[in-house]
């Protein structure tokens, strides 16, 4: 399989070239080590923080903020989207504001949330939840609205209740879009947790990055950044995996494109 070999070899080679260049730049001494540490130094830092376990509490703190905020924000968003989709009156009252707030950078609220909810977990969860709310809300709403009208007619023709139509038709129809929203939200959750920690925290990878910056520990910053990248990738993979299981009919038959709306 020449093709398959190439698919494996190419990225590995790219990585090797990248590492080589990096090493060369660092070793040549053109740039001070506190600006660009050698790859070996970064490797050692990663090894150290994991072997000695010093990074775990931070990873755990960031993970907790991310997951709790994600859970709260997504749950609220789903319920809100369902209510807005089902009740025209509610939609009229709140939808314009949700649209207006959607493109606002929610991280700007971080300092205010710290003032309101304290320096602890609560403020970060609120921030993350706020950030997660919008992509989930928009996608769930789009998904619910994109339900094929003929499927709804099918149920309506038998006098089905709105409630049953919601559970039997609208919700499964929207499932693909819901997951698309969750995917975006999870990545945004990690972002929110990091920003929250930038603004005020003593634990968490975001705060460790800031402390490392203050203390000239650029290799540790790299370790934190790579850890965050891994967390994001893993979270994403898990959502995609669950999605494939739950929304098994999408992709399989190629039926029903999923609308994904991005978010700030």
């Amino acid at each position: 399989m020449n093709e398959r070999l190439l698919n494996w070899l190419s990225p590995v080679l790219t990585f090797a070239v990248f590492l080589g260049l990096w090493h060369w730049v660092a070793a040549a001494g053109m740039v001070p080590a506190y600006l660009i540490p050698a790859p070996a130094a970064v490797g050692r830092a990663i090894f150290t923080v994991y072997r000695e376990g010093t990074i775990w509490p931070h990873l755990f703190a960031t993970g907790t903020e991310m997951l709790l905020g994600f859970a709260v924000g997504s749950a609220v968003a789903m319920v809100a989207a369902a209510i807005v989709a089902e009740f025209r009156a509610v939609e009229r009252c709140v939808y314009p504001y949700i649209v207006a707030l959607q493109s606002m950078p929610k991280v700007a609220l971080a300092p205010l949330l710290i003032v309101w909810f304290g320096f602890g977990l609560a403020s970060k969860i609120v921030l993350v939840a706020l950030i997660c709310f919008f992509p989930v809300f928009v996608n769930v709403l789009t998904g619910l609205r994109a339900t094929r009208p003929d499927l709804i007619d099918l149920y309506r023709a038998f006098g089905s209740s709105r409630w049953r139509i919601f559970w039997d038709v609208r919700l499964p129809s929207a499932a693909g879009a819901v997951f698309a929203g969750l995917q975006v939200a999870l990545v945004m959750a990690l972002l929110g947790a990091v920003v929250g920690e930038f603004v005020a925290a003593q634990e968490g990878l975001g705060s460790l990055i800031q402390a490392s910056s203050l203390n000239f520990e650029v290799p540790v910053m790299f370790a934190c950044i790579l850890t965050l990248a891994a967390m994001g990738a893993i979270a994403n993979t898990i959502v995609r995996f669950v999605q494939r299981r739950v929304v098994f009919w999408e992709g399989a038959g190629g039926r029903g494109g999923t609308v994904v709306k991005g978010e700030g």
Partner: protein
Amino acid sequence: MRRDGAQPPPQLSIRGLGVVYRGRKGDVRALGGVDLTIREGEFVAVLGPSGCGKSTLLRIVSGLIAPSEGEVMLDGVPVRGPQPSVGIVFQQPTLLPWKTVIDNVLVPIRAQGKPTGPMRDRALELLRLAGLEAFSESYPHELSGGMQQRVGIVRGLIHDPKLLLMDEPFSALDAMTRERMAGELQAIWMETRKAVLFITHSIQEAVMLADRIVVLSDRPGRVVEVLEVDLPRPRLADVVASPRFAEITAHLRAFFQVDGPLRGARR
């Protein structure tokens, strides 16, 4: 045509049916005074140009929308809302992709909020009739287009409706599959003998299947012709070669003729 004995009483009777859609860009008159009756066990096809209100007619009969004028009586009772005693087959298969074939067939039961358990045997029986018994636990995306449409037909029959409404059920299929499906529908119909309101764009399909063909005019749709099809049943593939078939199709084609081979056909 079933002319054996006395005519059964009308199952569906439509009188003076008119519909106006109110839209932002003004109102659209979709149907302009349609009269139509379907007797018990009768297969009626509706032919009409695109946009003349055929689907609208069907939606009114099923109780999904209310007419602006006129009246629809089903079994002597005016239609005012959802009609569980009617079965519907849509243009697209309209299957729930997250339900198995048998659960899809049972959707009308579920939609009425009744327990589906007691109906499973009937569903399997109907699937067998449609040659789909082996696929009852498959998901729609594992089926071909023709098979999916057959599931849609079986679903229309599951709750033993008095009247089956079909809105261009084969239009999404390719020409050959379409011909086969018409044959299969005829076989199922001859077995079950439901009253059927069948909407189509295909003259050949209408002649092949119907006891009676109703031709609607351009929008707003009005009945411009009602034609009894007296070809014997079962009508097999060779019926299209019969002179009577050719005669009937030629007569119908005249309604859709345009003033030259090239011009008129704006759609």
